[in-house]
């Protein structure tokens, strides 16, 4: 066939957005790392953060070529093996992992470090796609539900004890994928209500208020429903469950959570005001973004960025540089790029002819979305502080390559759509 070459069929829109994000990411890393660098350092000084990121970007080009040149079928065929390798690499961390800042998530090869959890996301997506694409799988079946949950929770169980709650949190997005593929809606609804009850319990710091509100809602519901639908036992059970949940949240929060976890929630709920201590990160990042104004202070002109006031600015807080130096316009632009890419991937996924590539594409969109949302929500102070990088933007080789592989495997599948297999 004439149109079989990858270059002709690949989705150039996604690639253009990808390149734009990577380049903007590098520019902002350059700006944010200037505070620690003397004036006359070269742009390609590979001992510097921006120099290293430059190398990572260059290295992602051969990775893209390899990913695109591999047969699309390969990913489906070997997905279980890839998943197994990813799990093994996570297990290996417990034996050979290098501990940085209290987290055992890296392999050290010389001075170079690799974070396997960044690659495990793609592997899990492949495994999930493979499992769901089996014709016999019906997610209404409880046994299937349990099996699919095992696939998701295997890597989570290995990542949580590293400890890396940020990476573990990412896996929750797979429930949206499962819902798309037929998981009953009450799973999501239950999760959604649980989150609301959780926040409500913490915000009021009094389970009785939450129980009272719930009881009121149930009573109103009871009298508003038709007589035949009235089920006093179900309502009562629901109330008991919620009561137990609310109390256990309160208990877990006050007795199981460590102080720094509690602090992170308290900052968001406006309960902590110690801006030099636990609230420092969030406060500083809000100041940096807020001081940017509508048009921003201009590239390399950010006083907060130059001063290095925002901790971890080149990694998890890279968006503060955008906010300060590029202003609201820049923020709209970056968020627009992400939304564009995610929606584009969803659109492409829906267009797929095989269930495997559709599920995988959905996983890619979901993973990109939850990173993007959690990261920026944290930076603008509406989500607890948690280590989730901004895809393509944040400094780090493993992250950049992990997202690149994740995205380009899907782009390869998409480019292959005309080529029936």
């Amino acid at each position, binding site marked *: 066939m004439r149109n079989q070459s990858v270059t002709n069929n690949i989705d150039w829109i996604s690639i253009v957005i990808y390149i734009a994000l990577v380049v903007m990411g590098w520019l902002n890393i350059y700006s944010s790392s200037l505070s620690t660098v003397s004036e006359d350092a070269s742009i390609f000084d590979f001992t510097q953060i921006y120099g290293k990121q430059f190398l990572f970007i260059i290295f992602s080009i051969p990775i893209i070529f390899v990913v695109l040149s591999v047969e699309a079928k390969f990913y489906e065929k070997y997905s279980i093996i890839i998943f197994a390798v990813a799990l093994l690499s996570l297990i290996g961390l417990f034996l050979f992992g290098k501990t940085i800042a209290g987290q055992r998530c890296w392999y050290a090869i010389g001075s170079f470090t690799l974070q396997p959890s960044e690659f495990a996301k793609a592997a899990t997506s492949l495994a999930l796609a493979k499992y769901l694409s089996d014709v016999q799988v019906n997610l209404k079946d409880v046994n299937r539900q349990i099996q699919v949950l095992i696939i998701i929770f295997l890597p989570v169980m290995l990542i949580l004890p590293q400890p890396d709650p940020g990476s573990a949190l990412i896996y929750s997005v797979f429930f949206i994928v499962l819902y798309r593929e037929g998981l009953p809606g009450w799973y999501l609804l239950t999760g959604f209500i649980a989150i609301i009850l959780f926040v409500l319990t913490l915000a009021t710091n009094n389970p009785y208020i939450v129980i009272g509100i719930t009881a009121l809602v149930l009573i109103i519901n009871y009298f508003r429903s038709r007589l035949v639908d009235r089920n006093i036992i179900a309502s009562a059970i629901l109330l008991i469950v919620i009561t137990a949940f609310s109390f256990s949240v309160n208990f877990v929060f006050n007795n199981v959570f460590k102080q720094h976890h509690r602090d992170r929630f308290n900052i968001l709920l406006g309960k902590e005001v110690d801006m030099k201590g636990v609230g420092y990160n969030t406060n500083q990042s809000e100041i940096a973004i807020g001081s940017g104004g*509508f048009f921003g202070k201009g590239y390399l002109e950010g006083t907060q960025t130059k001063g290095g*006031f925002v901790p971890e600015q080149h990694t998890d807080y890279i968006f503060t540089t955008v906010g300060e130096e590029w202003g*609201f316009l820049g923020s709209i632009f970056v968020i627009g790029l992400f939304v564009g890419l995610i*929606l584009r991937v*969803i659109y492409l996924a829906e267009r797929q002819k095989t269930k495997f590539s559709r599920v995988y594409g959905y996983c890619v969109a979901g993973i990109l979305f939850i990173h993007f949302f959690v990261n920026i929500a944290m930076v603008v102070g509406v989500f607890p502080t948690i280590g989730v990088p901004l895809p393509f933007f944040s400094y780090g080789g493993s992250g950049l390559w992990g997202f690149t592989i994740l995205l380009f495997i899907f782009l390869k599948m998409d480019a292959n759509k005309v080529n029936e297999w």
Partner: protein
Amino acid sequence: MRKALLPSVVIIAASLLLLRIFYLQVIDDSFKLKSENNAIKIKYDYPERGYVYDRNGKLLIANQPSYDIMVVPKDVKNIDTLEFCSLLDISKEFFIKKINKAKVYSPMLPSVFLPQLNKLEYAAFQEKIRKFGGFYIQKRSLRDYQVDYGANVFGFITQVNENIVKKNPYYIGGDLIGKQGIEQSYEEFLRGQKGVKYILRDKFNREIGSYKEGKYDTISKQGSDLTLTIDGELQKYGEELMINKWGGIVAIEPKTGEILALVSAPSFNPALLVGRQRSKNYTLLHNDSIAKPLYDRGLLAEYTPGSPFKILTGLIALQEGVVTDSTRFSCHRGFSYARGRFMKCHCSGGAVQLHRGIYQSCNTYFSNCYIKLINKYKDHSYAVDRWADHLKSFGLGAFMGYDLPIGKKGNIPTSKTYNRVYNGWNWDGKTIVSNAIGQGEVLMTPIQLANFMATVANRGYYYTPHIVKRIKGNIIDKKYRTKHTTTIDRKYFEPIITGMNAVYGPGGTASGLGVAGIEICGKTGTAENYLKVNGKRVKLQDHSIFVAFAPRDNPKIAIAVFVENGYWGKRWAGPITTLMIEKYLNKKITKVDFEKRMLTGSLKAQYDKLYPKKHQDSISLINNRIKDSLAKIKRTRDSINGVLKKEIKIDTLQNP
């Protein structure tokens, strides 16, 4: 439906994020300010405070560098605490306490760890500072007093308090400001104008360049030097004469109103209020509520003037025409002014004229004058007010407007006072006759007494007393160059002055106090005084008062001396006046016997009576501690001088 979930979640979530960012960046303005506080450090450049000279150009106050040890708690790591503490002579507990305090303030920002090290301590610390990460040295400028007198004139400098910072936008926390004396009243000239530099900094407070190329920076302006009207030698001599006495001396140059000496006793060394011991010493001085060393008696103490007031009574009587210099009143060693009311008199009796009335200080004479004065008009209220107006033209009963920040009005009674006190009575001159001899309701401060003497010396005018002669680059306030003329005609002064001159003559109240070659005109005073003890009025030993000016023609100095509980005028205040005049006019003392008696004489036994028995021990304790503190200051000064000499030696060795 299921397909729509993820895209809708993406769009809703992104919109919420944008809303939040819009709020942060466009709606809420507070972050801009916070960011500037964060990243822009305002660095102040403090100019050196102006120097202070005496009227002869002698340097009185210079500056000395002082060094604060600052600490950034976050950067303090692995230091040898033992070495650190022994180097600065502090205890480990103190170290821990200070570090913790700094941490509470901020772990990242610098706070003062140990303020005001002297050169010697600084030199020792500076050598080893590399070993102590997190500590650095902030240079400031403190006063270096070249003399050990004049503390009440100079005032002192101290850190601004919150109130001042709130009221005056010039000051920020940690700034120094003048308190009391000229340091306060000429603060704006002495301090200069601090310079401001806006500097970009990073989170470690490291400076990373100037903000907007220094567009908003200002340069500091040096403080102006002051030349005081004080004669250093005279001031010093006055303070020495007043040792172990309480009271005040004010000397004024009549022609200009310049204050030549302003002594308040007990006095203290101004160096006590500098450096690390400042607040401790200040508390000690402040807590002595009976001797009140911080209380400037020259300006604040309101005394009944006693006999010198007779000069005013005489002048007003002459002006009002109720007597002439030949009017005689007969004195019977006293004056019976009402039934059972008898005022004793110490003059030699007989028919007394104005001349003898003054030099023998005849109570009878001036009481008669006063009664005539008040009874001149049918309306006694009017008469008293006329009398009060004459007094007010001498600057009495009001703040005179001199350039020191403290003062008292004194008191000149008017008809209002007496109509209130003697409500319903038909009071007349006799009722209030004690005013005639300065023992009534009239109150005067020593500086008012001195100014009144200067007015007499000028034969009827005065310039507002002031203590600053020149401000470098500025002229002194116009009000110190304005002549104030009294309501008394010039011709009435001469007979009074003749009488005052005779005070020193044979039979005069100050006979034997004169100095050969100087024609002094003076007047003794002995003022009764009372103290309320447990509601009972207890009579204390009389105050010794003396006022004088000299020479008689072309007067160069007018002086008022007040010695609390000094028996009578001639005993303490008189000799001190003579010595001060001789010192100022002749620069050397011929009355050596006087000098010896005054320098060694003490009224301590008198004053000890004022202290309750149980407090007398604590007073001596305070005195001992002040003595220790002074000795310590002297030791460090000596050792600094030693170090300086050594440094110079090294320099000369290196650069032959």
